[in-house]
């Protein structure tokens, strides 16, 4: 359970055992990798890029100049998870996301977990992500986080750790779907003779989930829309992709308006009522009357309708309090407190610099630790101790001392590697994993798969696309491939 720093000898490769043989279940992919000609792989890799470019799957990197519509590199070697591994993850993810939702309901209602002293009160109530406007508000089905992206890393055969929870507007699911689509198109032969669990039903599941949380005021069929900040947003492609696949309107703030405590969209037929908004706009920009008055992306009066039960906003306003990097430390507590269960997924050991002991330890061990800003995301503003120069560490230490509550630190984990196609053949590269959990009023839905991000630079542990990471298709092999006669998983 304890992990040493990223020394090469201790790194777990997900496909190849130390003796060079493929792990059970991965034989056929390993064999294919040996037999497929290099130049064919190279040709397919550039074909994949052309496909992505043509479909328009690009993302924007802020403040770097260059091509504003950039591609995320795609690696043609898939990453495999076995059915029994996935089963454990699926149960762990469902458990975790249920607890996160119960936590959100609790902190915006009776605050039992704070009263019981299981989570420090000031960490919640003084948190920037805590939204007092949501106190006492009943959201449909009691659900705050309808779409959660949980970032996992792996360090050993059975060692999966949650790195962070994304309970606001997790992105990237379109890559999960398009990666599969492109793999099936480029390597149909790979899919013959293996039982790879399909992920295509994600968008249907998403639509079902959103329809299940229609607000109390909605009578009849709920109208669902996707709310985007607009076409200059880095994830605009994903917003339009999801709207298109669900067959619902992709709206901007200017398309919506509030009247008589309901939300309407302006259509060529006149106003049409909207019941559920899958928003990809941050809380601060959602409603200029309630939050940032300069926001042109929001809908004036939206929060009031949300509070009055006239519309469901997914994910609910104020959900960010559950994915704060300091709150993260208490998720195992939440699972015990609300569900009376033992956490299935492990947390990474985390030091919070607001605590004196932790801060002293962190400042003493900066060269072993990864330090992150509590409110940061996207790999920006973090310090990877072992890779940083002494000057960078000294400068970062000053930042920590100036504002200790804003920083957490974690040991550098020996992230697992997967074989990746590089210029001179295959090489192990570090990966992480983001599955998407959908929480409806009726049930929790999970498609067997997720987004695997891969650090393309040798030795790098940073997988964020904004920092030069790529993606891989992720296969969950059905049980019948692995253990004939076994029970087929439904997940």
């Amino acid at each position, binding site marked *: 359970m304890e992990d040493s720093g990223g020394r090469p000898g201790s790194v777990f490769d997900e496909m190849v055992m130390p003796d060079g043989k493929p792990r059970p279940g991965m034989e056929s992919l390993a064999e294919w990798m040996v037999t497929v000609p290099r130049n064919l792989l190279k040709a397919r890799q550039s074909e994949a890029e052309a496909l992505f470019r*043509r479909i*328009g799957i690009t993302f924007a990197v802020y403040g770097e100049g260059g091509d504003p519509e950039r591609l995320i590199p795609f690696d043609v070697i898939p990453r495999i998870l076995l059915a029994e591994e996935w089963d454990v993850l699926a149960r762990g993810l469902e458990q975790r996301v249920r607890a996160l939702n119960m936590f959100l309901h609790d902190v915006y209602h009776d605050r039992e977990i704070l009263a019981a002293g299981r989570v420090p009160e000031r960490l919640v109530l003084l948190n920037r992500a805590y939204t007092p406007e949501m106190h006492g508000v009943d959201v449909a089905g009691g659900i705050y986080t309808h779409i959660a992206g949980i970032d996992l890393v792996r360090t050993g055969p059975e060692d999966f750790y949650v790195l962070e929870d994304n309970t606001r507007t997790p992105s990237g699911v379109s890559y999960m779907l398009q990666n599969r689509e492109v793999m099936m198109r480029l390597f149909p032969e790979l899919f013959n003779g293996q039982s790879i669990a399909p992920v295509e039903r994600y968008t249907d599941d998403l639509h079902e989930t959103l329809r299940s949380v229609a607000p109390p005021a909605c009578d009849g069929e709920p109208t669902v829309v996707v709310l985007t900040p*607009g*076409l200059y947003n880095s994830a605009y492609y994903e917003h339009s992709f999801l709207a298109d696949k669900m067959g619902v309107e992709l709206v901007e703030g200017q*398309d919506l308006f509030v009247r008589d405590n309901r939300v309407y969209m*302006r*259509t*060529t*037929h006149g106003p049409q009522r909207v019941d559920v908004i899958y928003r990809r706009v941050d809380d601060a920009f959602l409603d200029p009357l309630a939050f940032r008055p300069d926001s042109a992306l929001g809908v004036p009066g939206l929060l009031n309708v949300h509070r009055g039960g006239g519309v469901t906003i997914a994910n609910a306003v104020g959900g960010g309090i559950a994915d704060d990097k300091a709150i993260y430390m208490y998720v195992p507590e939440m699972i015990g407190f609300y569900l009376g269960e033992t956490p299935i997924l492990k947390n990474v050991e985390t030091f919070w610099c607001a605590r004196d002991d932790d801060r002293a330890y962190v400042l003493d061990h900066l060269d072993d630790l990864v330090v992150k800003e509590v409110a940061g995301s996207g790999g920006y503003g973090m310090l990877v101790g072992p890779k940083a120069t002494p000057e960078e560490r000294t400068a970062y230490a000053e930042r920590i001392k100036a504002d200790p509550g804003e920083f957490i630190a974690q040991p550098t984990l020996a992230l697992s590697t997967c074989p990746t196609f590089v210029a001179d053949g295959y090489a192990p590269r570090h990966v992480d994993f983001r599955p998407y959990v959908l929480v409806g009023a009726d049930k929790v839905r999970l498609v067997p798969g997720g987004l695997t991000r891969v650090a393309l630079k040798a030795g790098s542990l940073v997988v964020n696309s904004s920092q030069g990471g790529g993606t891989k298709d992720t296969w969950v092999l059905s049980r019948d491939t692995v253990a004939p006669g076994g029970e087929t998983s439904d997940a």
Partner: protein
Amino acid sequence: MLSRTAASLYWMGRYMERAENLARYLEAGYRIGQMADWAGGGTRNEWSSFALAAACEEGLLTKHGEATLDSVIAYVGLDEDNPSSIHACLKAARTNGRAVRTALTGEMWESLNDTWLEFDRHWHPSLRQDNLLNFLDWVRTRSTLFRGAMRGTMLRDDAFFFVNVGSFIERADSTARILDVKYHILLPPGESLGGSMDYYQWSTVLRTVSALGSYHWVYRESIKPWLVAELLILREEMPRSLRHAMSQVKRYLDAIAEGHGQRHPCQRRAGQLYAQLCYDQIEDVFQNGLHEYLGNFIARNNALGQEIARDFHF
């Protein structure tokens, strides 16, 4: 359909058509300008009358001081700040298209996108007097390609109807303005109405709307001003005529209304405009003055555009 989506489709159609017509327009000005000093011996500058007809005289003069071929290329071809430049139109067509990507077919998007990229990378830095005609040809070809992609691949539903309403409103406006250029361009001294210069100018107007061949096919006569005007205003079979454009506007507005099961005020206005074009005779047009007739049409067509925006909550 979202009103914003409808508006984007409508404006995408309008801007693509406007880019094409600006190119046609510039070509008319260029060809007439080339002939201008042929008879009189001196240098004549027709670009200010061109700019007057193109309704961009004020902006052009403010920015460049005088109307010359170079300043017209800079202002009408390349100026991003002039909302009626080819540059601004191609960019606006692409931006509107990008905002409604999922309502477009792949071919349509690719044609818009490639057009913009080629303009931005190739033509924008290289456009000069000596390759102006190549450029104008290129603009027309790209517009034709876009139209072909739209007609060949797009589902016949509201999205298609709104693109076409925009295109034909714009085309009606442009043809009226192109025809009006002739009014603004004076004949050189010593040239008489019906003389060879006059003839050349009218035939240039026809060429500009790709109608020289059609003219001879329809009338089998030498070029007469009132017949040119009749062809471009009143003939239904002439695809760039006011009457044809208005019949298409009416047709697509009706199709939208049928889908909605509800009539809109803009249909009535479009119907009135179309009916008048059906029943007017060319004698009536000239009796009251061609320029006045065209000016009146442009104003009413413009009001129709505003009515459409109101009815569909753009």
